[in-house]
């Protein structure tokens, strides 16, 4: 993330987006989930930002909260950007950006599927990779897998029919 992008974003959103944070080799900024729609509209449409490509959306379980991570690229300015929003662990919700970036819809579905983070306004928020009737969200750190799924044991050692493995 270049200095100019950070300055432009702070100018537009003030304290609702953080100063750049360096964690190891990567730099990111954290934004207030309430400005999601305005932020991504600006990132896409403003000439000095021009982040036309949304590389990925994903989640991270930080124990006390969830983070939604967005990776963006500007092919014209040859720049990349990493943004995060922190969400309450009890009811993790953030606005969907499926209509701002056509490719975002599936990334949001995957994040919903694996973390149980709800993207408000998504028109088709279904599980993507897991079966529709799967219990729980597998990438959460406190996820406990059920012993069986439709009578199929989920571990190599445990059998559900009482016979030895």
């Amino acid at each position, binding site marked *: 993330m270049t200095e100019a992008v950070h300055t432009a974003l702070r100018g537009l959103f003030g304290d609702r987006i953080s100063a750049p944070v360096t*964690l*190891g*080799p*990567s730099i*990111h900024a954290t934004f207030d989930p309430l400005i999601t729609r305005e932020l991504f509209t600006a990132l896409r449409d403003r000439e000095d930002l021009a982040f*036309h*490509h*949304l*590389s*990925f959306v*994903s989640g*991270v*379980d930080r124990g006390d909260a969830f983070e939604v*991570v967005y*990776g963006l690229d500007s*092919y014209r300015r*040859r720049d*990349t950007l*990493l943004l995060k929003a922190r969400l309450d662990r009890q009811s993790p919700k953030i606005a969907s950006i499926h209509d701002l*970036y*056509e*490719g*975002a*819809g*599936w*990334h949001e579905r995957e994040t919903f599927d*694996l973390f149980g983070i709800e993207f408000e306004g998504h028109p*088709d*928020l*279904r*599980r*993507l*990779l*897991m*079966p*529709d*009737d799967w219990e729980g969200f*597998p*990438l959460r750190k406190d996820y406990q897998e059920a012993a069986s799924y439709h009578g199929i044991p989920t571990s190599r050692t445990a059998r559900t029919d009482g016979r030895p493995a």
Partner: protein
Amino acid sequence: MRTLADLVAERAPHTGMMLNMGPQHPSTHGVLRFIVCGDGEVMEQAIPVVGYLHRGIEKLAEMTPYGGFIPYTDRIDYLGSMFGNHAWCMAVEALAGIQVPRRAEYLRVIADELNRLASHLIAVGSMAMDIGAFTPFLHGIREREILNNLLESLCGSRLTFNYMRIGGVSRDLPPGFGANLDSFLSRFQPGFLDEFDRLIARNEILVKRCVHVATVSAARAMSLGFVGPNLRASAVDWDLRRDRPYSVYPELTFTVPIGRGFRGAVGDSYDRFVIRIEEMKQSVAILRQAMANLPEGPIQAEVPRRVRPPAGEVYSGVESARGELGLYMISDGTEKPSRAKIRTGSFSACAAIESLSRGCMVADLVVLIGSLDLLAPEIDR
């Protein structure tokens, strides 16, 4: 929770016919399923249903030490295992601050480009096969066989290579590798690729099946999240090897082919087909230079047996045969990553079918799938 059954029930009253295709259809490249909504031959939409090959690779990553996870990365995209190896090792090396010896970097580039050739041969061959031409696929497989021999002599494996290590590569070039590669390359380009051009790429039947099918503009390609050959076919001039340089690519000279509307419009299925043939020519040029410039020296940096990168996070990507293979990795200072998100090219390409299929003929769906070079395990991970 909303399910597929809800979606089908919602759509059914408003659509003429709903047709299930897959998950075992031969032209769906792995285990991929579509629900085709349409009226006769024209599709209103093809809805991809994925997850049949979901192995939970990202969850497994959280349970496996960094070095031990490399064989799993072979299985993200089994036609391009080297890229999985490379992306994983690069991310760990960035986190741990490991410097890779120059000879190892060159060997990585050689392995990557051989793998790119093998993968693109399957991509163009299987796309022609989906359209109904069986011969091109066999021609592609024939050449790939020699590439597999080369890669087998390098790392002992023909598909899931497990070649790279954190801080280097597992083996140096075997005796005679240079001569074998030379004799392959001199037959492959111009010989094979010219023949392939004449026989298939300029074949009027194939051209007519592909031109103006599912044309994607540059702006649309970026919004859809396209990467790699699919993005470049829509005339977006972006290649990670040149634009976010890694390894020793800055020392090598190559051009980045982009879609020009070779026979139809810029960004149609034919452009996506031709761009892969053009990229193979560039890979040949890279391989020749890398072999000529290959420095002497160690192939492995001094790395602890169990790598424990300091707490931090990184996003890094390599240009795989299917576009940007990115890894967003978080280290908490232990010997296992606390999170590894894998961003793949087929994922966004498959998502795009939802909207690109609108108004296409049912028969063109296989052209669209083939031209996007989808690979189911890379979508599901």
